[in-house]
């Protein structure tokens, strides 16, 4: 075997090994659902902290959207603000500042809704993130996970969450949960089952001082 052939074979091996490596954008999409129903509006300041934390962790090329959960959440109108961050870091920083300002205004002016359509919000998040085409997809649900649907709304729909990470944050206990904690546990279990049935990954983070697992 001549030296030239040897080099050619080595090069071929190099190309083959390279083909296994991912090529394309290595970005992340985060869609955050903020429950604005009833008394949960009091928790919006916590939501602001989570949004700011998420903004500080996102990189150029990522995308982030914040949507409210109200009576009918399967709608673009419920998206408070969405942003595809620019490739350039300097522009990304400007966009993050603007995002923060918009969220600050929203937190101050948010009104409580009568119903809580979490499923509609998740369906909207799936649609948004699929369209964004990000490599990693995360849905943050800032809610007590108590779904209350208006009469006539059909939400018994299986969720397609392959490749998705669904994280419930700040799942507060209701008064009824205190009377019977099984309600709270059943609620969490039901959502976990629903997400895992849709081949998604389920997480719950209630300690807001330890939000790093969102980006792990």
């Amino acid at each position, binding site marked *: 075997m001549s030296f030239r052939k040897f080099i050619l074979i080595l090069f071929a091996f190099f190309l083959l090994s390279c083909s296994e490596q991912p090529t394309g954008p290595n970005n992340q999409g985060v869609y955050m659902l903020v429950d604005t129903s009833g008394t949960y509006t009091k928790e919006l300041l916590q939501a602001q902290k989570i949004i700011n934390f998420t903004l*500080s962790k996102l990189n150029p090329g990522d995308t982030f959207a914040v949507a409210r959960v109200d009576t009918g959440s399967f709608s673009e109108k419920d998206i408070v603000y969405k942003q595809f961050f620019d490739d350039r*870091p300097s522009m990304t920083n400007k966009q993050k500042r603007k995002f923060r300002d918009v969220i600050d205004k929203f937190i101050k002016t948010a009104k409580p809704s009568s119903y809580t359509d979490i499923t509609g919000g998740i369906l909207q998040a799936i649609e948004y993130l699929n369209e964004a085409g990000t490599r990693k997809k995360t849905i943050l649900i800032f809610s007590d996970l108590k779904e209350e649907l208006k009469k006539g709304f059909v939400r018994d729909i299986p969720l397609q969450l392959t490749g998705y990470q669904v994280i419930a944050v700040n799942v507060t206990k209701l008064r009824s949960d205190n009377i019977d904690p099984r309600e709270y546990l059943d609620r969490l279990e039901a959502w976990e089952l629903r997400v895992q049935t849709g081949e998604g990954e389920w997480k719950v983070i209630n300690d807001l001082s330890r939000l790093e697992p969102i980006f792990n």
Partner: protein
Amino acid sequence: MSFNDIFLIVPNPFLAGLIWVVGIVAIMYFARSPAHLAIISVSRVIHNAMRLTSRAVMGAEDRLNQRNREVLLEQGREAVERIIEREFDRVDGTVRRDLSEYPALHRQLSEEITIIDDDYKESTEVPPEPPAWVKAVDAVAKIPGKDPMVASILEDIHISMVKANTQAIEAYRKSSHKRHEHLKTMMPHWRKVKSVLGQVDKNVTSLLARSTTIDRHMEEYENIISKTDRAVRSLSSSSLTQFFISLLVLAIAIGGAFINFNLIARPMAEMVGGTSEIMGFAINNIAAMVIILVELAMGLFLMETLRITRLFPVIGALNDKVRLRLVWVFFSILLFLALVEAGLAFMREMLMEDDSKVVAALTGTTEGGYADATNSYLWITTVAQMGMGFVLPFALMFVAIPLETFVHSMRTVFGLMGVGTLRAIAWILRLIGNVVRFFSNSLVQIYDLIIFGPLWIERIIKSKHAKDDAATDASSVFLKKGASNEL
């Protein structure tokens, strides 16, 4: 069918085991001779195969060794030729610089000597001539009698003599003074002659030192040409030393390149974006790496055109005019890249500051407070980063020197490693062959140990047969003897 079904020929396991043992031992006893032959022949086959393979490997090792030797001598020859060539260049430089002025020095020396000679002639002492009329004194002195006239004449002569003497002494003093003046003017000329001769001596001594160095290298060159073992050992040792030293320097250079990479990778995202990946690497990292590699390539070419390294014969073979133009081209590109890097380093600092402000604002710290706290010392790191961004490309340029040494010495080191590996393989093969050979002898003994029972019985039967045969032989001899006696 399980193992138990096969094993339990009879319901009692002990009995079944015993039957199996007896059966196996019986089979082994009857198959003893062919089994021994099979074991020995297989071991012989393996032993011979290992021996032959080992010999082939040693042959390859010998060829590789020979090849290494040739390469080493060739590289050594080239290196010594370069050194000798450089020494001759230096000698040429010395001759051109110093000895080209020798005719002028010679002329200067001749002129100085002529001046000294003239001065010397001028300074020679000529005794004053006595006055011509002194002979008349003798004649007057020989006049007989005591004539007062004669005494008066002699008195006058004496006065005249004293006067003449005084004048002569005065004249002599003047001429002596003049001679001393001449001798005084000779001193600077002597000093100049001494200085000129000292300069000539220095030049000649430097040439002699160079010639000694050339002699030493020539001796080394002759050793290499003669392909002596001493030359090979010396070159091999030198090559190993150079390999490890160049490896160390290259490791340091890689560290420098890594710092350089970190300086420009982040700001490159502003130019090419930082989100896409190619083959698992972020595109801005690839762009930064490409810039560093281009700088390295320019540095290599610059060192090559300056004839400091000789990695590319094509560049070395260019004529001097084109080569010098290329020097400027490569230097300009390198300078441009260094300036770009300095700019990127500045931008990096700006971006980091902006990032810090955004994170501070999002996590609750006010932007203004942060900026006030950092601005007082920020310029130091900014200037340091810009300086590093500018200097590192030029520092990396010198990687060409250890790289050349590494490439050249690597051939020798890999060759030595190859020889060592082949020797080890040959030794292992021979070891395996011998182990198999002696193990087969042990296996034969173990075989016999297993069937020791039948062998023991066989030995008893054989010895009994031998006794019977001996008794039969003895009785037949006795009968024969008796018959012969009767006859």
